[in-house]
């Protein structure tokens, strides 16, 4: 394996360990405990249940036990709020989030990039203005507003399109659109900026001098370079998209992973919390790495230096 990759993966392991440490102590610092409920549970029961989850041990022992169990048994613990192994929760919900995230990414790219290009090509025209306004709307409207709007004004009026639920292919449409909208808006702006930057470079003039048509100038000569800022943004953004979104999932009733981040925190489900953060951290590490590799792929000059960090 190339040195650069090994190096980055080692750094990734360190990131995950640091993340584990921070999350562990944050989780312990939250008021309340996993078995807090509105109806009081007797002290005996609490003591028993703590013992069951190994929460009666000294904190340092608990701190070391979790990574040890991951390494030796591949176990991420049992969720205190869902009563099932953390790994099951992740493996059952992540595929849904992944599909949703991929489709959202599809929307983001499919909407954001063309708008960005159009806007860059027609810089300072009314088209540019309209495109950027649309993008700004996308950034301004929070998903807890756009989601219900789509439910009321779109889904309820189109037969075959459900207001919420997750079972048929068309059910992906609205949630992924809602999820991808903000990214689309950001992408539009980044693409516009990137393309404008490239368009001002000399080789574009060369291409025009060769008789290349305006469309080809954009598609063949500008797009690769112009997309670089967007790619850098997409790394962490993609990790966030596929790890789910609490708001979109609850609005559209998607059995994804995002709601568990919130539920784990509110129910003080520390094992689930640790498992999820580690998983998310892993996604971020991998996605940032992928974004860097993709940058290298788009920009041949970067390949030799081994990418940016």
């Amino acid at each position: 394996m190339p040195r650069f990759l090994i190096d980055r993966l080692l750094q990734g392991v360190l990131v995950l360990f640091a993340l584990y440490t921070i999350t562990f102590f944050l989780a312990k610092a939250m008021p309340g405990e996993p078995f807090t409920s509105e109806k009081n549970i007797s002290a005996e029961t609490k003591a028993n249940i703590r013992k069951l989850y190994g929460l009666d041990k000294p904190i340092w022992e608990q701190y070391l036990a979790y990574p040890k169990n991951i390494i030796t048994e591949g176990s991420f613990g049992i969720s205190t709020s869902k009563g099932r192994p953390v790994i099951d929760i992740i493996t059952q919900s992540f595929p849904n989030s992944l599909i949703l995230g991929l489709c959202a990414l599809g929307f983001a790219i499919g909407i954001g990039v063309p708008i960005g290009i159009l806007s860059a090509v027609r810089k300072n025209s009314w088209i540019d203005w309209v495109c950027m306004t649309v993008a700004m709307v996308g950034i301004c409207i929070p998903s807890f507003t756009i989601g219900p709007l789509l439910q009321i004004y779109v889904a309820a009026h189109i037969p075959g399109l459900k207001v919420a639920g997750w079972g048929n292919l068309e059910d992906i449409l609205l949630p992924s659109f809602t999820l991808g909208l903000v990214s689309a808006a950001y992408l539009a702006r980044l693409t516009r900026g990137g393309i404008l930057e490239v368009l001002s470079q000399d080789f574009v003039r060369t291409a025009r001098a060769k008789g290349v048509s305006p469309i080809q100038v954009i598609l063949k000569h500008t797009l690769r370079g112009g997309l670089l800022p967007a790619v850098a943004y997409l790394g962490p953004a993609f990790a966030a998209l596929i790890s789910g979104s609490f708001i979109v999932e609850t609005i559209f009733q998607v059995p994804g992973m995002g709601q568990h981040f919130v539920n784990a925190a509110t129910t003080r489900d520390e094992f689930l919390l640790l498992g999820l953060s580690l998983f998310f951290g892993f996604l971020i590490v991998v996605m940032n790495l992928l974004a860097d590799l993709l940058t290298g792929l788009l920009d041949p000059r970067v390949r030799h230096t081994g990418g940016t960090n």
Partner: protein
Amino acid sequence: MSLLKIKNLKTYFHTRGGTNRAVDDISFSIDKGEIVGVVGESGSGKSVTCHTMLGLLPQPPAKVEGGTVTFDGEELLDLSQPLLRAIRGKRISMIFQDPMSCLNPYLRILDQITEPILIHENVSRATAEARAIEMMTKVGIRDAEARARSYPHEFSGGMRQRVMIAMALVTKPDLLLADEPTTALDVTVQARILKILRDLKDDLGVAVLFVTHDLGVVAELADRVVVMYRGKIVEQGNTQDLFKNPSHPYVKGLLACRPTLETQYRILPTVEDFLQTKIEEDGSYTLSDHPNAEDRLAKLTSEVNSDKEEKATLTSLLQVSALQVHFHSGGGFLSSPHKTVKAVDGIDLQITRGRTLGLVGESGCGKTTLGRAILRLQETKSGSILYDKNELTKLSQPEMLPFRKRMQIIFQDPYASLNPRQTIEQALTEPMLVHKIGINQSERRDRIVSLLEEVGLGAEFLLRYPHEFSGGQRQRISVARALAVEPEFIVCDECVSAMDVSVQAQVLNLLRQLQQRRNLTYLFISHDLSVVKFMSDDMIVMKNGKVMEHGNADTIYKNPQSEYTLELLDAIPSSSLLG
């Protein structure tokens, strides 16, 4: 009938700052198979002329206000975009100044060279590739087949320009517009490119419009010459005639202010010595011979030997021995780790206080690295730098601080080396603050004003930003900034290379005067042998990190010892016409 005929062409730029008449009523023509040189300094409108023809100018702000461009019977300015595109790259091709930025860094060479064929001709990709590779071979790219799949950044500057030429000629155009194609290149490479162009003209019968600021190149290459100044043609004619008997004062000045190997002046004449510009209230102007041109020139000639006497003190200020600087590249992914480049490979040199050591070599020879290494801007691998009996290589960066005050550097690109967001006053005050020169703000301000006056600028510039100055003025500011810390030693790193000859002359003169006034010691680095020879007492010729030749500047010129020096001397274009 002419292949291309330009008549009364006017291209103006309308910006918020007002109207700039970039091309103002020019007419000339090119015949089939002819090479026409268009000479002018930056801003003279020569490039704009080329771009106007092909419709490559951004509109707005540019606007063609009048005139015609007739190409082979067709009126180019009236053509619709698709029709114009059919001509661009097919019948009229263009090559540009900077081959790095003009080649698409994201695409393979082969894709870029085949592109015009695929656009304009209905041929298969395989055919196009074969022709591209054939053309690459023709322009002198060895291993064309293998190298065609590389990316531009994997080529050297000269090779990239060959790629550009191959790309331009691959469709066998009738007319080639060459916009400063050799300006960014070393002389030896330039010589080779010029040869290729000449050969291709003979082979393919292509007409060339060669735009350049370098009179030497035109003299060597062109059949006819057009000289432009401020958007107007001031003189045009047969190359021989024009150079032998220039009639316009501007052309005279241009010819004179360019240092050549034969130049004997200590101070160069400038264009202003020949040309008088009278600006009317409405912005128009008239050019005429400077009334005192004869006197001025005579005065300069009389100074030739006046200060050529030997300096009294001959103490050595800087002694560099066995200096090595290595670069490590690679070590990243997809490439073998740690490739070492020996940029400076065992250099010895010595500079006497108050004198100038010239350092000449082509790009990549390590001359710039050497200059930076001496100032400890670059980590050295081994060797010693003895500055006024202090060993610099052993010093930490904080310990270098007192020496930073004594040793300065002036860079090639004054625009890049000035912080765009600092006013001139801030840029000049800051070094004084850091080195605790001047007691208070008003004293520092006085110093700055006198510094500016010393470099020929007025105090009214203090509150302006670098982008508001011309190139020559910016370099004067750089010089002033270097002087602000009152140094005794200055490294001039290609500090006039990017300038027009007339400006170059002014800056060279300035450096000269400052040296005399302040007893400065220079390390003068340049790729231009003539300039180095003009500036230096002693000189070094460098290649591949090593010294090729070392000695008195005059001696080396008159009697070059190494083959490489000889090659460099030979490559200087057309000295015969410019004597």
